[in-house]
């Protein structure tokens, strides 16, 4: 911590001695460390540097941000909060409850955030009527990424139902490739399960079980069936998956070792970074049975309160994040879609255009749901209880019946 302060100080001294118009630095805590993500972040860095605001990078690796949240807690407790922190869903609400976040209402009013951010997203970016975070993007998790060459070689078409999906997996297995590339970390298994639950039970069931946490729905036969389907997917994953990072799983699809990966649209960034083109080298389609739904997860930047006022740099950072040009430029690289609905889709590739259209459609038809695995369904304790059960099932500790029962108990205890 003292080292960080020291660095901050010396950076400030350097800035002063250089007599440029540098205001101050923003220290940004985030977990965007993979190739595609780092490239996307450079867009924001460049944008701020053009305004004369220095960027102090504070990356804490680990998808899902578990490690980053631990670092954050230590820093806040020691009274040395970073300027801005990448955050997901309920983490924002939890920190806002502690009164640790700065109020961004001025920046929001100036730039009219209320009118352009989807309502489902505002629930998380605002706390008790005030804006506490600036959403950068909207990711959705119910995507399947497939290797087009493998699909063509085996005469496969895009599956739209669970049965077709099973058939595709079987064909790929016969052809001697791993049908599903899956990373073996609890959050990845749970992210996959989000889509499976939505597909198995439909949006009403998803809402009831994973958002409202109704014990009856959690322990129902539908949930058991969802676990059965997850088991069917597990049977099509190679045995060496445990502990694998998501981008390594994506690489398996890129290299043609595996047919498909079920992962959020951040996976597209990896395809793009590897020089692949959608519809030519790879396919993107919704998880079978969830064509109309968008299960979202939005990266947001929360600004930490620095003595009661929103500093100039924080306001500048928040405004920069929400500007339509940045939202477009950033999301083109990152693979997600803009958090503003008024950003033109001209610069996006085929998958991006589909994502933007899907989001708009889902938002207006009430089919926009938060992803529980990504912290947009319930607070961290419940999310982790969900991880426990799903990962235990995925690694063979439970059968479907026990898993559904365990889910009821685990979520009840975590509440």
């Amino acid at each position, binding site marked *: 911590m003292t080292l960080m302060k020291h660095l901050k100080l010396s950076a400030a001294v350097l800035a002063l001695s250089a007599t440029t118009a540098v205001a101050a630095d923003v220290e940004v805590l985030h977990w965007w460390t993979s190739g595609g993500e780092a490239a996307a972040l450079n867009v924001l860095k460049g944008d701020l540097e053009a305004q004369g605001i220095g960027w102090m990078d504070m990356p804490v690796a680990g998808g899902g941000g*578990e490690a980053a*949240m*631990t670092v954050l*807690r230590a820093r806040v*407790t020691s009274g040395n909060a970073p300027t801005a922190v990448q955050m997901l869903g309920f983490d924002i609400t*939890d*920190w806002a409850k*502690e009164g640790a976040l700065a109020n961004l209402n001025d920046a929001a009013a100036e730039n009219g955030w209320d009118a352009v951010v989807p309502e489902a997203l505002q629930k998380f970016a605002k706390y008790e009527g005030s804006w506490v975070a600036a959403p950068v993007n909207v990711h959705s998790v119910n995507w399947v990424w497939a290797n087009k060459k493998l699909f063509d070689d085996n005469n496969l078409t895009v599956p739209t139902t669970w049965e077709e999906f099973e058939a595709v997996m079987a064909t790929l297995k016969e052809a001697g490739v791993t049908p599903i590339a899956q990373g*073996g*970390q*609890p959050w990845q*298994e749970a992210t996959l399960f989000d889509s499976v639950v939505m597909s198995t039970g439909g949006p009403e069931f998803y809402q009831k079980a994973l958002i409202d946490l109704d014990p009856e729905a959690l322990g129902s036969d539908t949930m058991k069936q969802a676990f059965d389907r997850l088991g069917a997917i597990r049977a099509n994953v190679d*045995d*060496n*998956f*445990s*502990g694998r990072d998501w981008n390594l799983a994506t690489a398996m699809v890129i290299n043609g070792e595996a047919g498909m990966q079920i992962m959020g649209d951040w996976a597209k960034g990896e395809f793009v970074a590897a020089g692949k083109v959608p519809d030519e080298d790879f396919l993107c389609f919704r998880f079978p049975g969830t064509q109309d739904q968008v299960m979202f997860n939005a990266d947001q930047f929360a600004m930490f309160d620095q003595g009661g006022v929103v500093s100039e740099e924080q306001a500048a950072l928040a405004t920069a994040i929400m500007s339509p040009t940045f939202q477009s430029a950033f999301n083109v690289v990152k693979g997600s879609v803009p958090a503003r609905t008024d950003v033109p889709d001209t610069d996006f590739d085929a998958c991006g255009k589909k994502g933007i259209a899907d989001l708009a459609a889902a938002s207006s038809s009430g089919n926009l749901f938060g992803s529980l695995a990504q912290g947009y369904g319930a*607070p*961290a*304790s419940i999310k*982790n209880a969900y991880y*426990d059960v799903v*990962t*235990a*099932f*995925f*690694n*063979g*500790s439970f059968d479907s019946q026990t898993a559904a029962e*365990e889910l009821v*108990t*685990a979520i009840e*205890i*975590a509440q």
Partner: protein
Amino acid sequence: MASAPTQADLKTRLQTLIPKLVLSPSLAVIFLFVYGFIIFTVYLSFTDSRILPSFNLVGFENYSKLFRLSHWTTSITNLGIFAGLYIGISTLIGLGLATFLDQKIRGEGLLRPIYLYPMALSFIVTGTAWKWFLDPGIGLEHTMHLWGWESFSFDWIKNSDYAIYTVVIAAVWQSSGFVMAMFLAGLRGIDNEILKAAQMDGASNWQMYRRIILPQLRPAFLSAFVILSHLAVKSYDLVIALTGGGPGRATELPATFMYSYTFTRNQMGIGASSAVIMLMTIAAIMVPYLYAELREKK
């Protein structure tokens, strides 16, 4: 002349005082940061603390929740398997190595540090090295396949049912040498005269070990047991480096459980109660030991 005795008096008084003065800051610090925080943790375990500490008492709720969690049951079971095998195997291997080294062999000075060396590594290094070695995709299994033994299979680290045993393997590898050193010291402390007397009475080698040497090693056994058992209860880094608690949650131990509940899951109350259970487990082992030790000294 009149001032001399008071000076000497002052000097002796200073001499008795200085050790206390020098020790008192560290004593105060230990009281605050060790015992103070133990009390704080016990207190937190009875509160509804979530993301940050709260002071709202809820009685034994956290404990009852804790013991309903299958995740905690897994951790406890894993600790049982891990501690039992780790202590048992390390002691056996350590004792074996010490006995062999004690046969007045050549090159003991070279062999001893070789066996002892793994203890100098941090558990993180041990864990990472064994993770790669045991990984079927890049480690032992892969190498065996490359060498032509295609049917060779050793995928315990990826198997929920067997992963905990890989933790035992790595931990035993790390600690056996250390246990050996303790037993070796014990063996060297045995009076040669007794052994010679036994030999004259016609005792066989086996009888000598069984009746004379092993009983005399009792203090070494006790120290080995206490050191290994507290290492087992608090082991955290090895699991994190080796398996990350996985596959799934299959190799979680109480220490990793405590950390994740307190710091990443915003359930500080449950985390604190698991820490208290761990503390009591260690106390249950240490208190009788300390009691026995202190009583012997009197």
